[in-house]
């Protein structure tokens, strides 16, 4: 719990955390919808939470690079406790962001028939996936700046082709076969299924995102000094 509080305080101490938690979700609420879909802000939230998770996971990378994790390993603190506390802290911040975003959608798009609970749960599993993905991505690099540079390019393209920034309806079927393997694909897929009333596919999207989280977490949690 001490590590969790410390990680939370450390994350909240950064001004960028306030920006990504409170201001940016409000900014994307007002993006209007296309025909036959939810407001585009709901899809864009995928991009926002992916980058938010990456920025929030910076301390864990810095601690690894500054060899703080080596010193922590010399204490009675278990690595799993250290890692889970940090991840829980980042998840808590992003859940607050998610709640603010859902409240904003609820207040601004009152007249639309939106199942907020499903959107919240879908966003929640997407947040888990984003954090695990950031952890996994960062574990591959020895410099945060290099990692961030490559991530911004890769994540932007990934979000563009997988229906987060560009609607899934405009992407050709042949390309869709390839983009299915991208984890970000499953948020717009779930949202579209929810819009169409296919709850079964919404649940599958939940499951896929959860399994992706598990895979990324397993790879990213490998201790590297």
């Amino acid at each position, binding site marked *: 719990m001490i590590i969790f509080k410390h990680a939370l305080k450390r994350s909240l101490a950064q001004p960028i955390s306030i920006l990504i938690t409170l201001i940016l979700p409000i900014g994307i609420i007002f993006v209007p919808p296309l025909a036959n879909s939810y407001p585009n802000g709901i899809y864009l939230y995928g991009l926002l939470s992916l980058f938010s998770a990456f920025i929030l996971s910076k301390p864990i990378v810095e601690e690894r690079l500054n060899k703080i994790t080596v010193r922590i390993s010399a204490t009675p603190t278990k690595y799993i406790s250290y890692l889970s506390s940090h991840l829980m802290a980042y998840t808590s911040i992003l859940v607050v962001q998610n709640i603010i975003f859902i409240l904003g959608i609820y207040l601004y798009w009152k007249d639309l028939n939106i199942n907020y609970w499903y959107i919240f749960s879908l966003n929640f599993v997407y947040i888990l996936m984003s954090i695990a993905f950031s952890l996994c991505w960062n574990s591959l690099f020895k410099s945060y700046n290099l990692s961030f540079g490559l991530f911004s390019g890769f994540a932007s393209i990934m979000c563009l082709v997988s229906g987060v920034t560009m609607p899934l309806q405009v992407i050709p079927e042949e390309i869709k*076969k390839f983009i299915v393997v991208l984890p970000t694909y499953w948020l717009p*897929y779930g949202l579209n299924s929810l819009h169409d009333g296919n709850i079964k596919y919404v649940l599958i999207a939940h499951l*896929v995102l959860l399994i992706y989280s598990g*895979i990324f977490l*397993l790879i990213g*949690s*490998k201790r590297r000094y």
Partner: protein
Amino acid sequence: MIAKKNFIIGPQIIYSFIMVIQLLILLIIIFHKLLNPMVFLLYLILIFSMVLRWRIKLKPCYMLIDLTFFLLTAAFYPPASIYLFVFAYYFSYKNKLIYTLPLIIVGLIVNEGSYYLLLLQGLLFGTILCHWERESTSNKNIMDHLRQHIYDLELVQSQLLSDYQDTDRISRLTERQRIAEVLHDNLGHELTAAHLSLKAYKSLIQSKQFERANITFSKSEKRLENALHQLKSSVKSIEPNLEIGLLDITNLCDNFIYPVEFVHSGNIFKLEPYIWQLILMSVREALTNITKHARPNKVNISLKITDYSVRMTIENDGIINNPREISGNGLRYMRNRLEAVNGSLSIQRQGTFKLIIFIPFERSK
């Protein structure tokens, strides 16, 4: 010294590599059905299952839970049977061929050529890697055992050397005791008798009995002569032959196949027997190394003994460039023995190959 981490391609790395290939083959097979979320979900579950085993060492029997899940899925959704060959690869690598029995039964039900082919290649690769892994583990164990044995031997050797020093001290004390006994038994009696005779001589002179005094004086003189003679013979019997060590080295040098120039300076009698033993052992090892690894025209051995230390250099000009042979076992053992008595061994390679041995010793004991 920083340990260099060598990257060795072992069976585990090949297993992971082939596992990735197996999953890619599966992806290619299911590619045309990938838009079906169930197909992709099952594929992802399979990846998760394998990543979990890579990350956490779980018993192979737990994989039966995953297999049961896929078998049940295949019962309701037959295309899912194509995923099963990955399990065959996993189980055969883990040497649990019995667990692949349900896969063979499924094969009989499905009865598809591609299924058999995939199953067979999975079993084949898994079994080959399993045997490789077993052999590699066995070799590693043997190597570890040998390393442990060498380490134990080195430890015993250093303890023996330390014990040798202790024994030397004890034998010195015993020798002192023996010398004291010899002096007491042989000299003591004669000197006491001479002392008493001289006292008697003094009394006889004072009482002016000159004739008897002369006889007593002669006896005293004779006893003192006897004492002197016994002292000489005792010293001769006690004195060790310290030149034996030097003679041994000279003999070694004379009988060596290459010409050896041996020079020494300082007082050789200052050296303790165990230091002689070390010097002799080092010279013998160095000369053996020269016969094995060098083609010298001349070998120079220099032994310099000072008040507090002995420094020996063994130099040969027949250097053969093979850096791997510099720190062999012989030199390592030599270094260990020298270090056990606070000595040191250093090597210089500047045109010639020079061993420098330094052994400090206490001035007086």
